């Protein structure tokens, strides 16, 4: 069947796209900042891969039971999520250039699907190669991990496509009815399995609990299709285990591919709509408004009184405050998802595990404060990349603009972090902790966001729109993270040193220590504002936006 083969033009396009990615890397490596970002990225990747390889030799496989235990439930959860999120507005995603160039071109729909599948296949192959190294922990041989991971990831890609095509054929109403029935059945069975596991629960924490769910009669049935993938990864022998489970996993993917190609639904229109929507989301994420994808902005009735002028900083800050307020629902959802993801396992933990998780969360807190939140709260120059021309034309001194731009993220980040400090103060029954946090957190945030904005204004970079991993951007983010940690460490060190001196001079007074340390941190943070202003003054939108 001619329509079931990939035409030469689409093969050529795939080759061009791969070549383009390599060319992009090579081009990036030609500039100093690009080369630096790539070096950092590759250094990090090599470090992680090396650690995984070494650990796979050092840590005995039997000690790592968590991998196979969680793979099948994770795949099941993904499956349920895919069913829930597939709706009338779902569709197979094509990049805007593909919509404009391929849809009106003389290709059959199946050929376009085959092209989409081939593109996904290439991406999944590379990702599987990377992840397979981390599966050395649980796989007897590297290839077992690679092959199982590849098939599981292909399944993850194919399922939403299949559902979107089924929806196109049966219609939204029929799909919705079927979905309700399927989900109701699933949740009843899941509750039964969880009930059985709770009834049989013994010591051993979350791993033991999930293992109980898996081994219950209902759990085994529910997870059976997904166990095929985890059993391929964790196969103990080449034959019959790996060959048997691998063939089954391959068959599941083959059935999905066959379904996708045979359904032959007219997906073009739904794809155009879905692609436009996803593209808009990606564009918002590129502008630093990732949170806005989780919830529609609140109505314009959410208002904040216009701030005083404050030499021009007021209106700049006010604009960002309004955006933050109207996007607060999305931000809260994102923060709740992050917190939920971290805290959910706690519900199932034993006491000794709880201590370990508490230590882990404590260790992660700086990462969240200095990396996640600054990425989330781009209510500053980073979110204004498209509006730089406007900012430049405002009759305001750069210092006022810089101060106004930094105000919102500092205030919002502080508002998000202070409740954590309050919880810590209550837990340790020491109110001074909260008072110290009240003073120190804004100063630290000012430092962090000033560095983010300095890095952005000195080395502006717009994440690539679509298509392939943006390696340069990853490398750049890591580099900025290192610099931020460096400056924060320097600031904290200087504050501790001066605070220590004050403590000694004031006769071992902790109040003196706190005041002196806060003063140093605040001074460092404030001294960065003129630097940001200078960077803004020297910023050339004409030169830098095109990157």
């Amino acid at each position, binding site marked *: 069947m001619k329509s079931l083969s990939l035409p030469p033009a689409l093969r050529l*396009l795939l080759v061009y796209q791969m070549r383009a990615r390599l060319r992009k890397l090579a081009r990036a490596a030609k500039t100093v900042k690009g080369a630096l970002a790539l070096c950092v990225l590759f250094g990090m990747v090599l470090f992680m891969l090396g650690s995984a390889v070494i650990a796979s030799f050092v840590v005995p496989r039997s000690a790592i039971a968590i991998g196979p235990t969680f793979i099948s439930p994770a795949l099941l959860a993904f499956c349920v999520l895919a069913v829930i999120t597939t709706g009338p507005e779902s569709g197979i995603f094509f990049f805007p250039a593909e919509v404009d*160039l391929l849809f009106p071109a003389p290709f059959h729909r199946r050929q376009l699907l085959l092209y989409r599948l081939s593109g996904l296949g290439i991406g999944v192959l590379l990702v599987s190669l990377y992840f397979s190294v981390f599966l050395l922990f649980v796989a007897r041989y590297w290839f077992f991990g690679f092959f199982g991971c590849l098939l599981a990831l292909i399944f993850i890609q194919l399922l939403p496509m299949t559902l979107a095509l089924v929806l196109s054929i049966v219609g939204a109403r029929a799909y919705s009815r079927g979905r309700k029935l399927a989900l109701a059945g699933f949740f009843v069975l899941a509750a039964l399995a969880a009930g059985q596991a709770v009834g049989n629960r013994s010591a051993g924490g979350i791993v033991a609990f999930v293992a109980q769910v898996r081994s219950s009669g209902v759990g085994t049935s529910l997870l059976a299709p997904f166990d095929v993938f985890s059993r391929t990864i964790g196969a103990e022998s080449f034959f019959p285990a790996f060959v048997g489970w691998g063939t089954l996993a391959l068959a599941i993917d083959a059935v999905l591919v066959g379904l996708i190609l045979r359904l032959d639904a007219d997906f073009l229109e739904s794809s155009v709509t879905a692609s436009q929507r996803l593209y808009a989301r990606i564009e918002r994420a590129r502008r630093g408004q990732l949170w806005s994808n989780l919830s529609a902005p609140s109505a314009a009735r959410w208002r904040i009184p216009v701030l005083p002028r404050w030499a021009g900083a007021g209106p700049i800050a006010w604009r960002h405050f309004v955006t933050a307020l109207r996007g607060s629902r999305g931000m809260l959802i994102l923060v709740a998802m992050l917190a939920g993801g971290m805290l959910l396992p706690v519900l199932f933990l034993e006491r000794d595990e709880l201590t370990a998780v508490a230590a882990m969360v404590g260790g992660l807190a700086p990462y969240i404060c200095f990396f996640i939140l600054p990425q989330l709260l781009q209510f500053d120059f980073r979110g204004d990349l498209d509006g730089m021309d406007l900012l430049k034309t405002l009759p305001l001194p750069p210092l006022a603009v810089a101060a106004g731009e930094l105000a919102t993220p500092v205030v919002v980040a502080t508002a998000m972090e202070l409740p954590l400090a309050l919880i810590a103060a209550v837990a340790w029954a020491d109110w001074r902790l909260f008072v110290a946090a009240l003073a120190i957190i804004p100063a630290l945030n000012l430092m962090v966001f000033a560095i983010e904005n300095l890095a952005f204004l000195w080395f502006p970079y717009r994440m690539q729109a679509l298509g*392939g991993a943006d390696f340069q951007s990853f490398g750049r983010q890591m580099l900025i993270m290192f610099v931020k940690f460096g400056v924060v460490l320097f600031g904290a060190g200087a504050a501790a040193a001066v605070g220590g001196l004050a403590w000694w001079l004031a006769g071992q007074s902790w109040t003196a220590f706190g005041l002196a340390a806060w003063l140093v941190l605040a001074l460092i943070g404030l001294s960065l504002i003129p630097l940001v202003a200078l960077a803004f003054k020297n910023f050339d939108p004409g030169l830098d936006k095109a990157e």
Partner: protein
Amino acid sequence: MIQVHDYHKAYRDTVAVAGLSFGVEAGQVLGLVGPNGAGKTTTLRAIAGIIPPTRGRLVVAGHDVAVDPVAAKRRFAYIPDDPKLFESLTVTEHLAFVATAYEVAEHASKASRLLEQFELTEKKNALIQELSRGMRQKVAICCGYLHDPSAILFDEPLTGLDPHAIRTLKQTIVERARAGAAVIISSHLLSLVEDLCTHLLILQRGRALFCGPIGQARALYAGHQADASLEEVFFRATDRAAAPEALAASGPAETLEVRP
């Protein structure tokens, strides 16, 4: 060359196009005009096979777009408003891809001529992301012209083009129409439509207010003013249709079909 019969397009409760019928023969240039939301782009995208009609039949070069889309697509080119191209591919790679997709023989020389015509020769090895908006538009036009289509669909083709490129584009449209291509130009620039088009289709709220030769439109809407501008014709047509009594008289999904 292009035949549209009783074309309807509805999105849930919203009717984008209602009962549209028109035809464009070889050598004709049809100007598709109408206010925002009239259904112009929806119509072009349906002819291009990107969105299916809710009802009706769209035929290009004798091939029904819904029944035999590949054969139809071989015969036309669609240049959308603000065309999206592959950012990381070069201009030459785009042309090579299009040449392979449409099986264009001796595409290298054709591509070279087109690039020269649109002053893109110097940029042939540039990545799309390095090009300005206007240059991208020119690349999209070159891609569209490469396989010598029998029908060409333009959606706001002048956006971003410099005066040289505008002149070149106008010349090529006239040349290709003379060579037998059927052309549809959707645009808000009535001067462009007046310069190039032999026929006019005025759409409003998904309905055709007029379809026929431009002279006939003048006669219908501007009385005996032979020198009435297209702008005048357009405003009279749309204002008349917007009047409550005209809307009431038109009835549901009624289409005025005037064949050339």
